């Protein structure tokens, strides 16, 4: 492989890791618990800003051309961990506003509005994270230990994959445990869940915060690779790329979400790069958004559970052997919402 090709591959792999952390986090909220977090990008962005601020040092560094609050020089893994924690803290008031007391459509509306507001605030309040110019010259972690940039690119792939593994461990741990069953129960029927003693508001709030923390981690991993982050990096529409990845891959299924990431943010967005330039400059970029929308609609209509649907959870073993099991009927046409 030529070194240029290797750079391209490493970029895709980092992009894959960053996106998969985010998509697993969103799937835990949306696919498993049924929270319509249309403002998910806020938390990835908060993590990215925090990940930048925690490595940039004080405002006066680099000639003091950037204005931001809370600059620090945290050593490597801690800058990412701290970014996750900041995103989690930001999620608490937002969750109280938009998630714990609201259901379905209302959550979606409130979160979408908050996402639009958040970009505007980041733009307008220049002293928080340097306004429209955004933050740049974010130092790459551990870069001083490596001689060639290609070598470092592969090291960063490994680092981001480690973070993705951590996200896998968290989301898998939650969904496989009895806790995950309770979250799915909330998705299916909040009233029935609370009638069985589940504190629905609290459970939704916790999932929201955990998801936000993972989103923050993904943002920090991303910004430390890119080296810069600004309001143009996170339009509210970015959330829909994640949603499309989940809907295409399969809601509530981690493998499905991974497939969705490979197909939508990676393959789909990369392929459109090779399209011939038609019309005015930037038209193919706009068409890309149209295509993502169409992709989502097509899947919602014809394969609402995605390519790899949520798997049926059965229990083997135990002292009472159920021998008279009814034939299992697979229904894929049941639509997004449950019928109960």
């Amino acid at each position, binding site marked *: 492989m030529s070194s240029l090709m290797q750079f391209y591959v490493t970029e895709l792999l980092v992009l894959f890791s960053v996106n998969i952390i985010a998509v697993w986090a969103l799937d835990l909220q949306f696919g498993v618990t049924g929270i319509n977090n249309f403002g998910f990008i806020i938390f990835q962005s908060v993590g990215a800003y925090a990940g930048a601020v925690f490595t940039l040092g004080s405002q006066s560094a680099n000639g003091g051309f950037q204005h931001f609050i809370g600059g620090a020089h945290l050593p490597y893994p801690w800058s990412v961990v701290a970014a996750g924690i900041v995103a989690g803290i930001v999620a608490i008031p937002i969750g109280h506003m938009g998630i714990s007391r609201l259901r379905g459509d209302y959550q979606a509306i409130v979160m979408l509005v908050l996402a639009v507001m958040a970009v505007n605030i980041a733009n307008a309040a220049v002293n928080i994270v340097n306004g429209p110019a955004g933050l740049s010259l974010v130092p790459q972690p551990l870069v001083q230990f490596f001689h060639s940039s290609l070598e470092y690119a592969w090291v960063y792939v490994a680092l981001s994959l480690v973070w993705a593994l951590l996200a896998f461990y968290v989301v898998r741990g939650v969904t496989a445990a009895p806790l995950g069953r309770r979250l799915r129960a909330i998705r299916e029927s909040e009233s029935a869940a609370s*009638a*069985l003693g589940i504190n629905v508001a609290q459970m939704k709030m916790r999932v929201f915060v955990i998801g936000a923390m993972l989103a923050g981690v993904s943002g920090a991993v991303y910004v430390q690779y890119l080296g810069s982050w600004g309001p143009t990096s996170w339009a509210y529409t970015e959330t829909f790329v994640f949603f499309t990845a989940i809907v295409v891959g399969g809601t509530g299924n981690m493998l499905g979400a991974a497939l969705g990431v490979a197909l939508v943010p990676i393959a789909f967005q990369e392929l459109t790069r090779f399209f011939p330039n038609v019309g005015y400059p930037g038209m193919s970029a706009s068409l890309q958004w149209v295509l993502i929308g169409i992709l989502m609609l097509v899947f919602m209509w014809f394969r609402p559970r995605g390519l790899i649907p949520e798997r049926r959870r059965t229990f083997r073993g135990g002292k009472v052997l159920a021998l008279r099991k009814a034939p299992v009927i697979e229904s894929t046409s049941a639509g997004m919402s449950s019928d*109960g």
Partner: protein
Amino acid sequence: MTASPLQGELDDNVVQRRSTLRAEEQGEAMTTSSEILQVEALGCSFGGIFAVQDASFVVKSEGITGLIGPNGAGKSTIISLVAGSTRPDSGSVRFAGEDITGLKAHQIARKGLVRTFQKSNLFARMTVLENLLVGVTSMKGDSYVDALLGRWRWQQAEAKLVDDARELLVRFKMDRYEDTYAGELSGGEKRMVELMRAMMAQPKMLILDEPMAGVNPTRAREIGGHLRELADEGLAILVVEHEMVFIEQVCNRVIVMAQGSVLAEGTMAELRRNREVIDAYLS
């Protein structure tokens, strides 16, 4: 009243049933059975219109209590008020000697008062066995610490609960549906799963909102039989039901509601002699 599919069985049993009811009633009078639920002067209005007004009644810790009344009498509202889905404007609810007025639904459920819904409310995209397991109010592995520490923290506890759930499935003759998605069951089967799911919570008292709605007569008799069995094992049950035959057959006591308040309480035989009740409902 129109002839019901249950009528046939009733005709054979009614005389015997009534006599046993009377015997039970006399027995109760002697042992002074305790009251598990005490509802006092409960009131709730929506936009100035009273759905429930000054409603008071008690439910005994033994047997099945029926809650009947014409449409709009406030039966479902009373259930919501007692179970915490709606906050009452006035009055008090005591459960097992404890004031539970204004507690949230999940808090009340955790105290052992579990309700079902008029419209079947299962977790449709979860299997029957999973539905049952969600019923367990508290178990190892339902906290983030347990979940993140890994399988070994909760696996054994879960295996035991799976056994419990399977025993319940066998008892209710639903074991062949263990791995079926709850959304794919028939109306009657859904009712059975709701009942089993509530039982997994090991409640002290069950409130069932029209458990026979949309259920065929055979299944209705089956559910009635199960309820009787559970009551005989010491579970207090309050049932809202329209089907008078069912009420006659399985309820020890009946509460009659009309226009948001309680009109009368007693055995069905007593209520049949009550002029007010006849005028309001039974005529």
